[in-house]
């Protein structure tokens, strides 16, 4: 037994009811033949009912899981149609049901075909119920209304009809959730509905399913807009109430598909939704005028999608419907496909993505500096002073006294307990900005000998770094300062100490106030006064002597 049994073709309301004798979802193992696969039933889906917990330990009895309708095919008024849903590889592996649903039906004897597809939202536990209810209720509504309608299919009527069908589906799902005392969220699904009269295609659409239309002039286009969120897994479902209802004219054939199929042969919006025609080419082959031929093509696609080649690339549930007006499709007006142009564009696009996402020749460390907001030159290096007998005291809250060289804790002492000198505390902002260091208060580059001679060398971790400016480094208690405990500061003589790993750009800034060109300003006032008096007396004596 195989799924394309003509006797199983959906007709009227039969397709909207649970079919106890219909083939169950199949475990699609490619090593099996198609027939074997069809005979392989999913034992799990034979359960009479499933139970789920609502979180309060109250078990709710659910109705039997909605079974997949068998594949459908046929021809009416010269318009061929076929379609099926398959459980995807990921759901087979997880033991999850197929969340896709599709329905095709014929209204009256005129070539008026209605079709609906839905894809349950993966993260919603009962979305397969929602997808089944949405398609069934919408298609029931469409068929009932169209049978009762005797007027022409003008835009206003069909537009209202499709919107009403979408609302009907929305309400049916909401009501089902309410009756089963489940969250409506659990039932979310996409839904796309189509009405085709052999030339004009009317459709209403919610989610990331899609319809590819082939027009009489041989062009093809993605008629729908994918309603997706920003992530690959996100979608705006039927319940998002973001529906679009439109029409395409002069349509000779169209393909409806859920994202498991659509995304495989239709590029993204950035690519202009370009369509890989070779995938649908056999489906729209002219001359499908008999059930046998249509069945052969439908089975070909069913097997291909059940096979390892397709399933190695797509693990989602799969739904595909193809409708073609055999009177309109001819060898002359079929789309022309340029494989070389396709491949060329693909290569360019791949290069563009790689270039944008993985820019080459961008050193990681440069990016790091930009991110941290600290700029410094790659050429700057630190002199290794591991032999300078200076310990890293930063983390421990200790500094070295400038006068006696003893290590002193900063926590309690303001003055060195060993020599009494005032301790010079590091600045609060210990991040070192080289750019500002090299500029004076007027914003001009700072070019004194100190700045020019500043050098940095690579360092080992945990060792305090000092710049190689020994010429200007004040010796503890150096004569000439005039004070043992200097307090004045000269910015020119700020010394920057690198703490720890130089890459971390964490610095302690120490200032000291010795300026050897202006040392006499630092003399004690009494000493200075005595000096002036002595000089004055000497000058007086000299003056008297010469007179």
């Amino acid at each position, binding site marked *: 037994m195989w799924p394309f049994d003509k006797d199983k073709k959906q007709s009227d309301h039969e397709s909207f009811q649970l079919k106890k004798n219909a083939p169950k979802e199949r475990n699609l193992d490619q090593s099996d033949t198609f027939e074997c696969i069809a005979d392989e039933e999913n034992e799990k889906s034979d359960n009479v009912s499933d139970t789920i917990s609502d979180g309060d330990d109250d078990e709710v009895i659910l109705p039997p899981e909605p079974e997949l309708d068998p594949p459908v095919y046929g021809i009416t008024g010269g318009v061929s149609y076929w379609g099926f849903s398959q459980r*995807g590889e*990921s*759901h087979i592996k997880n033991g999850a049901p197929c969340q896709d649903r599709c329905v095709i039906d014929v209204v009256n004897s005129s070539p008026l075909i209605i079709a609906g597809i839905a894809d349950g939202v993966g993260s919603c536990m009962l979305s397969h119920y929602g997808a089944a209810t949405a398609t069934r209720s919408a298609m029931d509504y469409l068929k009932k209304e169209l049978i009762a309608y005797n007027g022409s299919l003008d835009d206003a009527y069909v537009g209202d009809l499709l919107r009403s069908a979408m609302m009907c589906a929305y309400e049916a799902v909401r009501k089902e959730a309410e009756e089963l005392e489940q969250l409506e969220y659990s039932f979310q699904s996409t839904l796309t509905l189509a009405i085709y009269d052999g030339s004009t295609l009317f459709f209403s659409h919610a989610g990331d399913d899609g319809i590819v239309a082939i027009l009489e002039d041989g062009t093809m286009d993605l008629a729908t807009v994918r309603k997706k969120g920003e*992530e690959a*897994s996100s979608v705006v479902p039927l319940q998002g109430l973001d529906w679009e209802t439109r029409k395409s004219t002069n349509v000779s054939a169209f393909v409806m598909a859920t994202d498991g199929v659509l995304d495989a042969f239709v590029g993204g919006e950035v690519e202009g939704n370009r369509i890989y025609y070779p995938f649908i080419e056999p489906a729209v082959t002219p001359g499908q005028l008999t059930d046998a031929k249509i069945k052969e093509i439908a089975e070909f696609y069913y097997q291909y999608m059940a096979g390892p080649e397709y399933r190695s690339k797509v693990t989602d549930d799969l739904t595909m419907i193809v409708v073609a007006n055999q009177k309109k499709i001819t060898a002359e007006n079929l789309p022309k496909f340029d494989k070389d142009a396709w491949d060329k564009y*693909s290569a360019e696009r791949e290069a563009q993505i790689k270039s944008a996402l993985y820019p080459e020749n961008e050193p990681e460390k440069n*990016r790091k500096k930009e991110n941290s907001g600290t700029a410094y030159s790659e050429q700057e290096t630190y002199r290794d002073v591991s032999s300078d007998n200076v310990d890293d005291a930063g983390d421990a809250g200790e500094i070295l006294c400038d006068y006696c060289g003893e290590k002193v804790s900063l926590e309690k002492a303001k003055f060195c307990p060993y020599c009494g000198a005032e301790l010079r505390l590091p600045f609060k902002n210990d991040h070192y900005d080289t750019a500002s260091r090299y500029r004076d208060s007027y914003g001009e580059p700072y070019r004194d000998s100190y700045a020019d001679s500043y050098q940095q060398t690579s360092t080992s971790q945990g060792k305090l770094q000092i710049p190689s400016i020994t010429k200007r480094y004040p010796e503890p208690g150096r004569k000439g300062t005039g004070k043992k405990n200097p307090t004045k500061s000269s910015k020119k003589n700020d010394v920057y100490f690198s703490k720890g790993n130089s890459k971390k750009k964490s610095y302690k800034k120490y200032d000291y106030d010795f300026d050897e060109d202006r040392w006499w300003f630092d003399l004690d006032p009494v000493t200075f006064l005595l000096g002036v008096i002595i000089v004055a007396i000497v000058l007086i004596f000299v003056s008297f002597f010469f007179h």
Partner: protein
Amino acid sequence: MPVQFTKDPLPTKNQGERHIPAVLLVDTSGSMSGAPIEELNRGLREFGNALQEDSLALGRAEVCIISFNSSVETEMGFRPAVDYEAPTLSASGLTSFNEAIQAGLDAIESRKKEYKDQGVSYYRPWLFVLTDGAPTDTGLEASAKSRLQDAIRNKKVTYMPMGIGDGADTRKLQEYYPDEAAAKPVLKADAKNFKEAFVWLSASISLISKSDPNTTSQVNLPPTPSMITVGI
């Protein structure tokens, strides 16, 4: 004439190739000195090796490593798994955990924008946080916590915190989940033996990268290694 495809039925390049971005926030504060930082470096290397073994993850996973101590640094920007190079980190300074959370979320937002600009679809980004202590930048805690909670709540990111050693404040790590979160898993490992966590992380990313994005929330992650415990 039998039905057949006249050309390759599907494009050679999978147009629907999805990326899975993962940001690793790793604590390199002074308390990680010694064995923990060596274990961290080993773990980062193991992580790369594990990724290399999975061809599909190799094409889809993208990793960014951000370290934090007194400051926060991007050790490695987003790179495809195939180009992953484990950095060698050293430990010193404080624990700017909150600043790192902000930096991690910034990196994710930035990457997502790049994906969108290029029309590349992606899985929900991962934010893996490894720390052995409590945050010291408490002034930034409220804003970082609020931002991360919003991101988790709105399904913008998968938060995966891991506490290393006894000093790790796992309760604090849990506070970064939204209050209403049903489960607030925090991984916990011994300070000298946690590199396996990175292998587990790699296996998890590989699993996600193979999953159907529409069923991502149903993916069962691989069991955590025996030395890693999960607190809820």
